[in-house]
């Protein structure tokens, strides 16, 4: 890339928002129940239906959440809980109940460390 002229007027550069809370800013303990509540709310937003319609044991796919959209859930988990899961986490734990259990276990363990530094940097 060509060097940028130092005197040129740049429009206000938008900055990338910080990637979300650090672990220190989150509660020390979060259980399956809290994760399930958050996931149900998230899924309700995704699907445009009331949270009480979402059964914790029904696979995401049966609600019409496609493979690629399910992949994007890992990003929400990262932003919300500073848990760096694999993108396929919602494929391997395909219900609210299963995913909440997985996340609660990881959270209790301190969560998998991110290999390549904090998100967005």
């Amino acid at each position, binding site marked *: *890339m060509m060097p*940028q*002229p130092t005197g040129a007027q740049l429009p206000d550069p938008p900055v990338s928002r910080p990637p979300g809370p650090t672990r220190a800013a989150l509660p020390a303990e979060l259980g399956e129940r809290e994760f399930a509540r958050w996931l149900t709310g998230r899924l309700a937003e*995704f*699907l445009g239906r009331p949270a009480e319609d979402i059964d914790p044991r029904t696979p995401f796919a049966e609600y*019409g959440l496609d493979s690629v*959209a399910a992949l994007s859930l890992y990003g929400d988990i990262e932003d919300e809980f500073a848990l760096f899961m694999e*993108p396929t986490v919602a494929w391997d734990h395909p219900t609210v109940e299963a995913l909440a259990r997985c996340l609660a276990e990881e959270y209790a363990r301190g969560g998998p460390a991110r290999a390549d530094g904090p998100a967005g940097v």
Partner: protein
Amino acid sequence: MLTPTERKAQGEVTGADEELRIQHRIADLERRFGAPDDPGNPLGTAALLAADERGELLAEAEEVLTGFRLNAEFVPRERGGRLDRIDTLGRVLRTVFRRDASLGLGYGATTFLAAVAVWAAGTEEQRRRVAELLLNGGRLAIAYHELAHGNDFVRNEFRATPTPDGGFRLDGVKQVINNVVRAEALVLFSRTDEAAGSRSHSVLLVEKDRLPAGRLRYLPRYHTVGVRGCQNAGIEFTDCPVGGDALVGEVGDGVELALRSFQITRSVVPSMILGGGDTALRTAVGFALDRQLYNRSVLEIPHARATLVGAFTDLLICDCLALAATRAVHLLPAETSVYAAAVKYLLPKLLTETTYDLSVVLGANFYVRGGEYGAFQKHVRDLPMISLGHAGTAACQATIIPQLPRLARTAWYGGPPAPDGLFRIRDPLPPLDPARLALVATSDSLACSLVGAAAELAGSGARTGAYRPALTALAGELEAELRALQEECAAMPARDRTVLASPRAYAGADRYALLLAAAACLGVWRQQDRDRHRGTAGRPGPQSAAAGFLAGPGWLTAALARLVKRLGRPLPELPSDGEGHLLDEVLARYHEGRSYDLYDTPLAG
């Protein structure tokens, strides 16, 4: 070119040497096809059109491709083939698509689409067998989709039920499979688990000669509007056992493997079909030069000139994006997921629209199926078929949309710009490693390379000359569009990340693809300047003459202006001689027989 002794002294194949080998390969294939407009050429346009009318692939052309060992292009070099680079694969196949898309798909591309899954996840034995099959001139068919489910292939019902001996029992129907009858083996996407979700499917490599008799039957051929020569038919398996060694990857890995393979195939197929766009433009230019209307040549009509120049500009835009996507497979495997979807979405769309514009120039000749301009209507019919096949427009948008909000928020203004190598059209690449292709893009350096472009161009001095104000303004519009899209993504409701996304979200994916195309054009232009400087320092690269055109500001200005216009943003005043300069290039390439893409490749005839 280096002499063998010099090459030996260097001890390795240099980038320039590799480029020359590619050019020789393309020239060899061009020579074998011969001049398209020669009526005596058994592989000329007339013969290809006649085969299309019959709904066949031209047998003589298939023989020529066999003689050229086209299948070697699909087999990795370490397995005895010639596949090193995805950008090169697209470039070589353009020669075939320039003649006939049916041949490009029916002889070539679908075999590659099927083989990719085996290269990505097959066992040593599977890779060996597929390499052997292809190098001996055999074919692979790819059976992923089912008609009822389209690109929602997770709903596929074709079953491969696991059996106690570790094998599978196949039951079900796959429709519209190219080459299904004559292929020796099939790559089948099948349900291996009843549960709903993305871990219920697996990919199987099924070799027909290893199946018991009477368990498979073919369904009638589908006749199609375009690519009529392709032999699409259905296949039905009934209680058909296959061994456990047919499994490609692990049980339940089917969707993951498909999404990885698609990153390669979605990148390269659009690059291939640029050859069809080349022929459509070439045919229209020939018409415009020959035809007299209102006592003047069509070329003197301002609208016709603008259309030809616009089509050439679109082809360059398409090639810049195809270049970035195919080279990203090697260089940016963590980002390819969105780039591959963007190029597969945008490129057939741009080509379809540009050929429609060209059809206006041809007037009533557009409808004529034979004769001098008959190739045109065939390409018009063929192009949309390729857009639909394999990964439909909506499927590609559905890959981009869920990823867009997070990329917009965390990646666009935070990461480094794309590496120089992404845009260097003739440079070598690191080896392809499908395992490194991430399912979700975590950075977006192509979008990042738009940031700061206006300031860069404002300070670009003599290189942009009279084009500088226009280029600076265009880059400013593109940067503003990126910011606006970021803001819109931030406000996008979660529902827009699913297949239920609103039209607004789909429009966002469209704008994003156009911005990526602009970033790719800028990137190519930046790197061409370096090529030119290197050339004047006494080390001219292969075909350095073409670098002169690409290093100039004219095409870049036209390309960015077309993209800014598509984005619905205001256009600055453009230099008045810009169109004339590009028209000169269009005509020079027509008369000298050079391709309408970044490579300026010499053509036969």
